[in-house]
């Protein structure tokens, strides 16, 4: 069997059946073969990758016992993560040609562990979207059906793992941008607790909601990547100083005796019947593993979407002010400053980004702040409190990750229907709590994801439940046509 997971590849590197260079070469060749269909990459970092592969080989040779399981393993990074000297566009024309002079903390931690970077992955512009159709550099094909979207905004990072080019990648999740594409491409996607992973070097969309996390093929791999990047960073004041629980320590503990809640609001009318069936089957699997399932209620779910679409645009309107054509990125030359601002931003931003900047600017404007932003913050607190109350009754929440399977490109052309994609993922961002998506079946050959949500800092618990489910089923082992072809 071809090794595909981090764990398997790490073993291959140690038994001599692979070297970091052969793994990188295979990954690059796979990307070359699949890119015309998938468009998952905005940049392939061949040179950086080979340098890292050689350093990793040295490490594995000299200090095999000290080498991280990630040492010598290829991976990819969503193009919102800054890497020193490497083009970083956030999927936007306005950052065309921008090379950051520094590397983000999470990425640096992977590099320090010996990770080998294959490239920067395509995404919705500034991570705003749920289909990756908002990228200024073209949409990404879903490896299960390239006429369909891979979800978003981290569509490229999801697709490249689903296609089998790399065993893992990093994405960012502001309202579901890791979990939803993971569900739609049949891979594992994890959004950790807010404050667990440093945001330093992550191009901000909505600072109070953004969180970096991994895409992997298995929950165990997810735990490995998470353990490598989690922990306090003095450069991010919102990163939490408390010690990180090792998710591997409790990964195999199972769900026997656990109480799992199913929020009735998360399986509402908008959920496709096929998705509902797959998720309910997953609940039965967990029950068979010894968990107790019960219905719970999160009454503010319907307003959470509205709250999200006030807070996230408000923060984004401010975060994106720095793209003004003055110091970096693209500029439309004009004789007057105001014209230069208007033309640069007008030409540099796509429609969805403009829509959200305008929404946010409006929500923060004098005279509207109290009615929108302040009110939204109050409801956000309510959303958190409802989760806290539910977590007094249950240990974790299980529910669908996305109300639908991957949809055809161009089918969600009105913004509101696109916004509905995140209705069961964004509450976890509002509350800052961890959530994972794990493959739980197929509808007409398209993957479905099961979401597991737990209280703040119970990241290990989320992985424990997901792992128990994954081991009892095996949907994660089913490969997309692009991954099968590579075998």
């Amino acid at each position, binding site marked *: 069997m071809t090794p595909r997971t981090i764990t398997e590849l790490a073993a291959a590197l140690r038994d001599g059946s692979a070297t970091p260079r052969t793994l990188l070469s295979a990954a690059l060749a796979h990307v070359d073969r699949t890119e015309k269909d998938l468009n998952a990459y905005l940049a392939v970092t061949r040179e950086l990758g080979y340098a890292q592969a050689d350093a990793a080989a040295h490490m594995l040779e000299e200090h095999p016992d000290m080498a991280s399981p990630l040492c010598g393993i290829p991976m990819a990074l969503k193009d*919102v*993560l*800054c890497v020193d000297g490497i083009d*970083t566009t*956030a999927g936007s024309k306005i*950052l065309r040609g*921008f090379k*950051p*002079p*520094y590397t*983000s903390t999470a990425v640096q931690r992977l590099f320090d562990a010996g990770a080998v970077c294959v490239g920067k992955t395509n995404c919705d512009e500034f991570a705003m979207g749920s289909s990756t159709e908002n990228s200024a550099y073209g949409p990404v094909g879903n490896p299960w059906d390239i006429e369909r979207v891979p979800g978003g905004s981290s569509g490229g990072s999801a697709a490249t793992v689903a296609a089998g080019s790399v065993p893992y990648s990093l994405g960012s999740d502001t309202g579901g941008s890791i979990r939803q594409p993971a569900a739609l491409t049949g891979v594992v996607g994890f959004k950790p607790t807010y404050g667990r992973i440093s*945001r*330093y*070097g*992550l*191009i*901000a969309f*909505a*600072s*109070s909601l953004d969180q970096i996390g991994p895409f992997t093929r298995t929950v165990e791999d997810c735990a490995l990547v998470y353990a490598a990047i989690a922990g306090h960073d*003095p*450069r*991010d*004041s*919102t990163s939490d100083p408390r010690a990180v629980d090792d998710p591997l320590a409790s990964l195999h503990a199972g769900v026997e005796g656990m109480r799992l809640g199913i929020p009735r609001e998360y399986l509402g009318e908008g959920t496709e019947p096929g998705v509902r069936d797959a998720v309910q089957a997953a609940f039965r699997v967990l029950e068979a593993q010894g968990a107790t399932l019960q219905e719970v209620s999160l009454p503010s779910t319907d307003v959470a979407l509205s709250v999200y679409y006030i807070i996230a645009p*408000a*923060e984004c*309107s*401010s975060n*994106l*002010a*720095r*793209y*003004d054509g*003055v*110091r*970096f990125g693209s500029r439309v030359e004009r004789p*007057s*400053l105001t014209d230069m*601002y208007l033309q640069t931003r007008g030409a540099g931003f796509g429609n969805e980004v403009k829509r959200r900047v305008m929404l946010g*600017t409006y929500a*923060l*404007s*004098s005279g509207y*702040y109290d009615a929108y*932003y302040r009110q939204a913050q109050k409801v956000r607190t309510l959303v958190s409190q409802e989760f806290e109350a539910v977590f007094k009754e249950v240990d974790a929440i299980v529910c669908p990750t996305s109300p639908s399977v991957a949809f055809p490109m161009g089918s969600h052309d009105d913004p509101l229907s696109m916004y509905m994609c995140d209705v069961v993922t964004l509450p976890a961002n509002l509350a800052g709590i961890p959530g994972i998506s794990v493959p739980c079946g197929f509808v007409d050959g398209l993957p479905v994801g099961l979401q597991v949500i737990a209280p703040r800092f119970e990241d290990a618990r989320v992985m424990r439940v997901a792992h128990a489910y994954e081991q009892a089923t095996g949907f994660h082992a089913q490969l997309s046509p692009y991954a099968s072809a590579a075998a």
Partner: protein
Amino acid sequence: MTETATLAAAVDRYEVVIGLEVHAQLLTRSKMFCPCPADYTSAAPNENTCPVCLGLPGVLPTINQQAVDFTVRTALALHCDIPPFTKFDRKNYFYPDLPKGYQISQYDLPLSVNGLLEFPVAGESVRCGITRVHLEEDTGTMHHAGDVLQSATSSLIDLNRCGVPLMEIVGEPDLRTPEAAREYLVRLRQILTYIGVNDGNLEKGSFRCDANISLRPRGAHELGVKVEVKNMNSFRAVQRALESEIERQTGVLDAGGTLVQETRGWVEAQGRTISQRSKEQAHDYRYFPEPDLPPLRLDAAFVERVRATLPELPEARAHRFQQQYGLTAYDAAVLTDTRDEADTYEALVAAGVPAKLAANWQSGDVAALANEHHVPLQHSGLGIDGLTSLLRLVEAGTINGPTAKELLAELYVSGGNPEALVRERGLAQVSDTAELSALVDAAIAANPAAAADFRAGKQQALGQLMRAVKEATGGKADMPLVNRLLRERLSEQ
């Protein structure tokens, strides 16, 4: 009518209401939210910058604890309350000297509130409320090829200053005259420099002032239309700008016109303010809580630790100088003007120089030399130790006053040991009674007319005799002794 007369007439009919906003850069080692050096004047353009203060994509701010300490120190010196919970907010606007497109500042929960500043105006003590003291970051600087950005053909941006910690001190509209406004600033700057948080340089802009001014008919309760005045870079400019604004507003009101709420800039060369921006053009800053920084909790123990670092403030120190050293109110104020000045004085006294002698010399000749050479005593060739030695020689009667003055001027520039120099050059005062008595006799013999005049009651005739003795000693005579000997001898016959 003269300018002053116009002003006086205006003040008869209208009550002037002034409130000041001061922006003071903090003397921290590093910037407010990144590790770059906060010193922006001695570096090449854009040298002291990093991804954080350049506002590059993906970077995050971290709070400079020293800046928080300094602001709390200031708040305590201004008798402010320090709420246990404070947060940062974003103030959003576009300008090329503001890389992030927002300034991190504080909006509805500032670091401190409800303070008070007391200061003298023409001998009367005036009190002005302090609304708030909060912490924010400075912007970069721009150099336009042309007067203003709008008409410039090109513009250069230096971001060394961008992110330097800035304290905003907002005063209540309690001030009633331009002079009071000026004295408020003088005292505020004195306090900030005393507590070591700001260097008080108005010209370089490390201490900047904007003024809000309105007029209302005497007896009216409602405030008049407020005008904000900017671009004043000296105490004198603040006073003049406010005077000019009072005249302008009086003119408008007297003519039956209405004032508009606006921002006006002081043009020093023209001696008037000109309109910069009307209320309609005012920015909507879209303040909202800074999501990249958690709120700060300043507990009582922390506030007390900062309070313990507060030095004695100028007003209290001047009061103590009067009590402890028997100085006049004027001398005490002069000698406590700056913390260095007061420290120097107390060092001299501690080294054994009598309090009065030290006060006279420090506020007289030493101050004049410091002014002349633009070098404070502690950095002069003489130094505090040198001055101590010199004044000990004066006190012991080893040298006389004129010799001491000459030596002071020389050593202030070139440095050296006063005692050694006095020995070397034989400058010691001639105070031997027998020697001086002989010289006194000789002087009387050589100037019989002057002696006769003095005996006849002409006091000033003594001067000629004194000079004769002084010359005979090469200027080294103990002149008070000469004076006594001459009077004794002349009254004998």
